[in-house]
């Protein structure tokens, strides 16, 4: 199960809608070992593609250095699918390399950049095995510390 503040959920969905038809990606960092996704960090999709995402390598290093300094880890790694369902693709499964992360998938295929519901699902991906988990959205959690230095 992954538990997100309403504002974090909204921020992920807004990012996915904004970048549609390209895939959007980012992390929600949290204190190491806490399993609490608290700090929303949208990333640039260096691939700039409707079918692929990749964090820019320089920004990836900066992100991990920052998390290290704050004793955080990537509790959630999110990305969007813009033409297919919110389920990990074969590429997603092959490239998942954070065994402790919740991999959140958002599908914008239905409404694109417009208002309207999205598919929002979460998975563990460990050693090629995908396990879907419940997503709990809570209104009583504080809004994320939004570092929106990247669009």
């Amino acid at each position, binding site marked *: 199960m992954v538990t997100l503040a309403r504002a974090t959920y909204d921020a992920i969905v807004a990012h996915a809608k904004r970048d549609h038809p390209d895939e959007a990606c980012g992390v929600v960092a949290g204190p190491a070992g806490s399993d609490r996704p608290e700090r929303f960090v949208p*990333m640039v999709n260096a691939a700039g593609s409707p079918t*692929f995402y*990749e964090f820019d390598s320089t920004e*990836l290093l900066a992100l*991990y250095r920052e998390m290290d300094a704050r004793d955080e880890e990537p509790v959630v790694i999110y990305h969007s699918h813009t033409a297919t369902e919110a389920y*990990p693709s074969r*590429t*997603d499964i092959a*490239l998942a390399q*954070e065994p402790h992360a919740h991999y959140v998938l958002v599908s914008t295929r239905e409404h694109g950049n417009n208002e309207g519901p999205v598919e929002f699902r979460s998975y563990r991906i460990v050693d090629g095995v995908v396990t879907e988990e419940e997503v709990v959205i809570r209104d009583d959690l504080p809004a994320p510390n939004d570092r929106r230095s990247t669009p």
Partner: protein
Amino acid sequence: MAIEVRVPTILRTYTGGEKSVSAEGGTLAALIDDLESNHPGIRERLVDGADLRRFVNVYINDEDVRFIGGLGAALADGDQVVVLPAVAGG
């Protein structure tokens, strides 16, 4: 000559859980050989044939090694090497 190597979570099974290990080598290739001798199996996770794996990023003093010679990139005493898996998918 000692070079600090920062190891990502997914590779810590090879380092007994250590986040950081010390290794030696005048080039990245030599450093990885030295890592392999102390942490068998790690080389395979970093290198594919004659190149670094596409979805593993290696940095020397914050520079992505792809821009400074790849496996041939030079190393000196006191350098810091960071290994990070790419965050990528489809």
